[in-house]
């Protein structure tokens, strides 16, 4: 750590307030590094053992679970960088999917009307979460746990009220379905494999979130709010509005994923999405987000989702006993967090 990194500052007029940082250290302080190493390791591990896993069709197969998870994980990562959690994110994918199905089928509306109604519902829930958290100052963990449970009850209660059963279905014959399918659930052939359009949306959302975080004023506000809310407010960051916007972003992602589910599956179960919220957080944490806020990355969260997708389908490709899946996932989470902690400690030492 002596030769390349420190350099020889005396040759030019150096600013003594700045430390020269070598390329290796610059790489290491990136939050997504742990996830990248993990993703490469997991891919190599499965690809070496299963020919199908590394084939184009196999890749398309495991990109599918990674895509919808990834869209949520990116939004959840933004929220976590902003210093908050949203435990209602998982069940909200169910709420929005059920809204699409019920409005379109039971109220006999064009599917795009139903999708619009669903977006409004999602934004209202997101605003409610954010408003309550910023207004009361209570931990978002508690507030969104409340909305999570309320939505779980509403999903079941309202579905049974409107459809008489616990599933809302029949979307395939609704007007506008073909165009909605094209946007949310079509497939395209890339290198001989049928790739779901959700994968493209996932890449697009990751790129958008990364740009917002790193290149815009709002991105700076997110880091500042999550790092230290009081300090952020003191220097003029609208912390309250930033938090509410982040909750509404998560809700919008849940709307997008919920709509994708509804259009793809054409029938939605009342318990859809329950329990997924922790998986989103796992993906974000593997991707380098800190639970305390102020640090993390959107690309990292996407890589976390990718690891999850590869693991989820890698295990059946190797014909292993799927009972061990969650053990593997849990071990992965622990190692990712430990690796991140070490990298971060090193990075902080390097900054001094």
């Amino acid at each position, binding site marked *: 750590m002596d030769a390349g990194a420190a350099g020889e500052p005396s040759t030019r007029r150096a600013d003594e307030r700045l430390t020269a940082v070598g390329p290796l250290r610059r790489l290491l302080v990136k939050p997504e590094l742990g996830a990248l190493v993990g993703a490469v390791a997991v891919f190599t591990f499965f690809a070496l053992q299963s020919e199908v896993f590394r084939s184009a069709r196999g890749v398309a197969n495991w990109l599918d679970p990674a895509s919808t998870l990834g869209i949520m994980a990116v939004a959840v990562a933004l929220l976590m960088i902003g210093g908050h959690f949203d435990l209602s994110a998982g069940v909200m994918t169910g709420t929005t999917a059920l809204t699409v199905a019920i409005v379109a089928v039971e109220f006999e509306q064009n599917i795009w009307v139903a999708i619009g109604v669903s977006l409004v519902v999602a934004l209202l829930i997101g605003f409610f979460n954010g408003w309550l958290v910023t207004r009361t100052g209570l931990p978002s963990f508690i507030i969104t746990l409340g909305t999570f449970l309320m939505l779980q009850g509403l999903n*079941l209660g309202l579905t049974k009220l409107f459809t008489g059963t*616990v599933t809302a279905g029949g979307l395939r014959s609704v007007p506008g379905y073909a165009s909605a399918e094209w946007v949310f659930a079509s497939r395209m052939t890339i290198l001989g494999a049928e790739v779901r359009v959700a994968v493209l949306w996932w890449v697009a959302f990751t790129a958008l979130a990364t740009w917002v975080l790193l290149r815009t004023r709002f991105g700076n506000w997110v880091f500042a709010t999550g790092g230290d809310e009081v300090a952020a407010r003191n220097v003029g960051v609208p912390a309250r509005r930033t938090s509410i916007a982040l909750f509404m972003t998560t809700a919008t992602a849940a709307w997008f994923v919920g709509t994708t589910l509804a259009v793809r599956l054409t029938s939605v179960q009342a*318990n859809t999405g329950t329990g997924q919220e922790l998986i989103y957080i796992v993906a974000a944490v593997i991707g380098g987000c800190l639970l305390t806020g102020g640090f993390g990355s959107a690309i990292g969260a996407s890589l976390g989702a990718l690891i999850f997708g590869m693991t989820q389908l890698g295990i059946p490709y190797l*014909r*292993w006993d799927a009972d061990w899946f969650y053990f593997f996932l849990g071990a992965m989470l622990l190692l990712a967090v430990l690796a991140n902690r070490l*990298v971060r400690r090193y990075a902080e030492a390097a900054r001094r």
Partner: protein
Amino acid sequence: MPAPRRLLAFALAAPLLLASCTTDGNESDGGGGQGSAGGGSGDLSFSVITHGSAGDAFWDVVQNGAEAAGEDLGIDVDYQSDGDPQRQAQLIDAAVNQGVDGIVVSMANPDAIQESVEAAVAAGIPVVTINSGGDRSAEFGAIGHVGQDETIAGEGAGRELAADGARNVLCVIHEAGNIGHEQRCAGAATGLGAQVTPLQVDINDLTGAQSTITSQLQGDEGIDAVLTLNSAVAAVAVESVADAGSDAKVATFDLNQDVISGIQDGSILFAVDQQQYEQGYLPIVMLQLYAENLNTVGGGQPVLTGPGIVDATNVDEIADLASAGTR
């Protein structure tokens, strides 16, 4: 600064280390599985993909049935399950990509896995559906269905309860989103010829389920029978009846050791046995017959494995079979 460098090396190596550990652990596991199934020719390989939650006793018996058939017939049988319909569909896609010779799939939510099942059929892989979804099986191009007609089973339970004098039945549903459960309760109402009150509980939270059933029994003292749809919930319902000081009888769908002892000691009236071992075993036989001889069964009509009623008259013989994990 050697310490951070060493830590860093560890951090980078950690995921690799994990991967290698998992290789070791699971290679021995996979080896065992292949060894047990490698008795016969081993040419065919079938995938069984269900919607059962991992660790559900009911689906464990299905898995035992499928694996026993694989062993008996010398077929490589792989069992996977995921309760989420989208992930179940992805597992079906994975099996199609692997080019297996046959797929067995349970259909709790037929619409959600329709595309994947039809893709399997289009790829020339024969599909047998099991458990629920029998009415959609032929439409998706499956060569057959092995299951229990939930409405018929529910009616059977309702008639049995009526014969025991029940008039006001609480029907405990433990999976929100499973149409089969709704059909069982509706069938029970038909068979009983009286009102059946549905009650929603969560199979993953049995203590919560117990207090929910207790409070329902305390709230409506007219309830004279509790019908549960799962053996684990039945054990909980027996406790609830005792807690509430009610004299309601408990009857259930599905068997396990607790239900059998319950029937033996009289705390459970009867169990509607779906005989799900057959839902694991028979599809493997059907797929083999189709693969080797192009046989189908009943022209694709559902093969019904239930309802079989287990009560005080036959419980002792069945007790031995259940402890072996086949009933």
